[in-house]
């Protein structure tokens, strides 16, 4: 456990978010909605994340991440009455556990080979092939935990989709805390990755790809929570990119700023869900009056605009830092990340406008606002205000001296001063996106983004989260039952289903093999023994018995014969003695 600049920043961030999450969980949930259980696991998640933020030991990272994963299992699968929810919780858990295995590899290699769990020592002392193994473990782990491609699927699992009932608000609340933790792991392990030539570029490209594709996915989601979930994966892509480019202060600034405004948005979604009963984007405008928290729309807007990167909010500042780092390395990378930023601005504007604008004409008669307890409102309002304020505070990073101080606090390679034109370009882009989206919305269509701009199949593909499940399926079953695979592609959870089926199939096969073959072997041996015994009784026994009989008969006859020399006649005894004597002499002569 250590408490350096990075730990300070991360722990303060986590504490603020946890405070807000705690207030909302306490205020919004009724006792019979599992409030206690939800708070218990949120606290556990908070505690583990906090511990993770204050360590430079792979062991502590492993332990805390195992606990984080466990709480996610509980919080994503919170409603145990619904088998579907429980299954998605378990699925998310297995994704996270995959990441834990990566961390396990890194920790075991660190201690087994270098004799230490300390990250800096591991980076310095681990000899060549082992360092690569550890780095692969860390990259897999970070990618899985940050929901990067191809592991992004689990972010969806907590939130349901239109075919399935909504989850408990525990999922968005957990996600608020979780968004901070993932990228942080990378910042801490930067030293190990930086010791290798190829590790950082891999990270960068995974990050760019995720930022772009998951951004597009977010753009076409129809549910606020799903939009936020895919957005989180996409934004974490920026973090991976920043770490990969070595811009640690920028990465940390991004983690913190994103943590605040994304928590604000997740909490808003949780409140909408709890009070309005839905988070469908199309219905947001109708839900807003039902929320009845003063300034809810405005506070939500702060979060959404910050995400969009509208100046002067924090999203604009931190995204600029990351893009500046990209500009410094590779124009192509810069172009792609700029695109990702524009996409972010588009979907963030979309959620903002859908929240603000009045509902389409036919729905004008708004449902009356339900009477809410004042304390509930105050708690949730306080939570949102805290996060909005934190978002505004993070915006001050645009001021150069503040940023210098920040970079000193974080440590790591010297921060780049982003060129001014880039800052302006970013801001203008975000504003333009906001404007464009407003215009589109004016067409009175609730999903303008899918009309005419991109082909239908592409939008559908994005809406299904890139068919990640199917993509993985394709990887897993290269050349194996291709036809069946294609048929199964219809199922949205084809990959997981396939993995399960295959494993079950193999298990069932092994288990039947186990029962039939391996178990039968000894049994057959036993049966064979019995058969031999029976055969022996029937056949061999007769032979043996007759042999024994013959022996007894021979002995008996021998006895009879032995009596015959005893004739009682003396001369015959003498003759016998002579013969015996002669034979004795003969044998003595032979053996001499």
């Amino acid at each position, binding site marked *: 456990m250590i408490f350096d600049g990075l730990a300070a920043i991360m722990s303060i961030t986590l504490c603020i978010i946890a405070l807000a999450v705690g207030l909302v969980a306490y205020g919004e949930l009724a006792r019979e909605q599992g409030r206690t259980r939800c708070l218990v696991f949120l606290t556990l998640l908070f505690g583990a994340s906090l511990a993770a933020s204050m360590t430079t030991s792979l*062991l502590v990272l492993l332990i805390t991440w195992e606990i984080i994963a466990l709480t996610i299992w509980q919080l994503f699968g919170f409603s145990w009455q619904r088998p579907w929810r429980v299954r998605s919780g378990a699925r998310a858990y*297995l994704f996270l556990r995959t990441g834990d*295995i990566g961390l396990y590899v890194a920790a*075991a290699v660190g201690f087994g080979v270098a004799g230490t769990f300390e990250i800096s020592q591991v980076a310095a002392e681990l000899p060549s092939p082992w360092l690569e193994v550890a780095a692969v473990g860390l990259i897999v782990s970070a990618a899985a935990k940050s929901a990067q491609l191809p592991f992004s699927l689990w972010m969806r699992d907590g939130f349901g989709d239109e075919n399935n009932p909504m989850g408990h608000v525990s999922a968005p609340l957990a996600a608020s805390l979780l968004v901070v933790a993932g990228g942080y792991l990378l910042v801490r392990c930067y030293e190990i990755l930086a010791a290798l030539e190829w590790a950082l570029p891999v990270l960068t490209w995974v990050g760019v790809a995720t930022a772009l594709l998951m951004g597009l996915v977010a753009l076409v989601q129809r549910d606020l929570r799903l939009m936020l979930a895919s957005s989180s994966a996409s934004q974490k892509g920026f973090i991976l990119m920043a770490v990969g480019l070595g811009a640690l202060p920028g990465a940390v600034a991004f983690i913190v700023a994103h943590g605040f405004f994304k928590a604000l948005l997740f909490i808003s979604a949780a409140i909408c869900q709890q009070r309005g009963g839905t988070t469908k984007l199309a219905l947001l405008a109708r839900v807003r009056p039902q929320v009845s928290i003063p300034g809810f729309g405005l506070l939500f807007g702060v979060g959404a605009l910050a995400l969009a990167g509208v100046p002067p909010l924090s999203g604009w500042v931190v995204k600029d830092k990351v893009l500046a780092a990209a500009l410094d390395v590779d124009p192509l990378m810069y172009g792609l990340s700029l695109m990702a930023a524009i996409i972010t601005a588009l979907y963030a504007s979309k959620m903002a406008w859908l929240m603000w604008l009045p509902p389409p004409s036919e729905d004008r008669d708004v449902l009356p606002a339900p009477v809410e307890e004042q304390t509930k409102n105050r708690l949730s309002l306080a939570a949102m205000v805290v996060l909005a304020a934190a978002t505004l505070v993070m915006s001050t990073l645009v001021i150069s001296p503040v940023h210098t101080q920040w970079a000193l606090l974080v440590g790591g390679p010297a921060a780049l001063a982003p060129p001014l034109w880039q800052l302006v370009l970013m801001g203008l882009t975000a504003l333009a996106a906001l404007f464009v989206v407003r215009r589109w919305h004016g067409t009175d269509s609730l999903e303008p983004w899918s009309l005419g701009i991109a082909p239908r199949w592409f939008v559908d593909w994005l809406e299904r989260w890139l068919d990640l499940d199917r993509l993985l399926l394709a990887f897993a079953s290269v050349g194996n039952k291709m036809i069946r695979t294609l048929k199964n592609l219809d199922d949205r959870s084809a990959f997981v289903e396939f993995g399960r089926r295959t*494993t*079950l199939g193999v298990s069932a096969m*092994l288990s039947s093999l186990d029962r039939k073959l391996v178990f039968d072997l*000894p049994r057959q041996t036993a049966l064979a023994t019995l058969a031999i015994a029976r055969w022996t009784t029937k056949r061999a026994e007769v032979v043996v018995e007759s042999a024994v009989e013959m022996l007894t008969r021979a002995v008996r006859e021998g006895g009879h014969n032995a009596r015959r020399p005893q004739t009682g006649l003396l001369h015959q005894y003498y003759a016998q003695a002579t013969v015996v004597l002669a034979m004795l002499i003969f044998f003595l002569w032979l053996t001499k």
Partner: protein
Amino acid sequence: MLTLLVFLPLLAALALAFLPAAQASAFRSLAVIVTAIEVVLVALIWSSFEAGAGIQFQTHIEWIPTLGVAYHVGVDGISLPLVAMTSILFLASAVYTLAHEERVKEFVLLLLVLETTCLGVFVALDLIVFYLFWDLTLIAMFFIIALWGHEDRRRAALTFLIYTFVGSLALLLGIIGVYLMSEPRTFDMVALSAQNPLAETGGVGALILLALGVGFAIKTPIFPVHTWLPPAHVEAPAVGSAILAGVLLKMGTYGFVRIAMAIAPEQWTTYAMAAVVLGVFSVLYGALVALGQPSLKRLVAYTSINHMGYVVLAIGAAAVMVPASVDVRALAVTGAVTQMVAHGLVTGLLFLITGMVYRRTGTYEFERLGGLVWVTPWLATIMSITAIASFGIPGFAHFVAELQIFAGSIATVPVAAILAMLGLLITAGVFVWTIQRIFFGPSREEFSDVADLTASEAIAAAILIAAFVFIGVYPAWLLDVIAPAASNVIELLPVGGP
């Protein structure tokens, strides 16, 4: 002291034999009292045990001097934790038995006799005494399965007895082989390990190790000689399963460390890779087959194969002939011993829990289970705690053990260690799915009047949970005892190290 510890349950059983069988409750409470005294005795021994000072509390009495057989017992850092685990598991089993209905007297007597024989195996320092306790354990367990088991108990008990008895014979063969190679001839483990009787014996030594190895492997059990385990577990009563998995399986791995490694170090080093391969195979095979099981008890039985696979992997990896430091090797052995203790406590409880589920629902089949959390939230809670402990979550004993096993074996056998880590992922899936299938989902009509934990069940579970949580949270207390003894074992091996 040790002798008292070992024979107290036997004496108690002899004394209790004269009580009338009608007083069932007296037997139950006396069983708890005796096993509790055992735990106290172990605690006393532990408190005056000096870590790193070799074998302690020795008693040495000549028994058959012409053959060099002696009643020689003692404990060191490897056997003491197993003795402690055994005594705790027997206490929990005795508490659990408080709710036992049929033929209580006989059951209690057998349980106490079994405790004597189990403890005897771990403290014996003479091969003949070891073998004696080893076989008596089989017989006691045979009766427990055959008399208190489920429908197909006779067959399962017979399979168990014959299969493991074949292992015993192989073991006996190995023991005689060791005896014949020793000079002066002795069965004393301490003397033998100092003598290294199999040094430079070539093929003969290898055959003797093979005989010993087959004996231990059947007991552990390692793939492919594990098939006696699932039927024995499925048919055994809950307490029988708990002891079988918790204590009897440890005898195999304990034998590997105490006899195969310490008395035949040269051969063990030569063939360590076989242990590594079989260990990894057992890990993955056990986990995969567990995933495919339709019945809760069979599933838990197969996870035992998975868990014991880690132990075999570790003790193999510790001896593989590649450059690695002594510390890393000792770490693997420490991890292996910790894993034995952890598995005893965790899987012991898992089997008691399967008994609790069976008592309430009359089935082990997943198809007929579900939604139990509506009526038995506490049962679901202890099952969840035990399950996450079983798949190695930090804060529980298995994590401590498995981390050491991986850190200790990744330097010597990296591919095997990484493959074995995948086992962690599969077992996580196994248990998450198990909890889901038994407890979650809509409530079921047929279980509507099922009651939650009884006091005795709750106490039995609490004892074991406390033990494995304590090891998970504060492992130093246990590791300080094991680590020096593990180093001693490693020093016997002819492997170099910086």
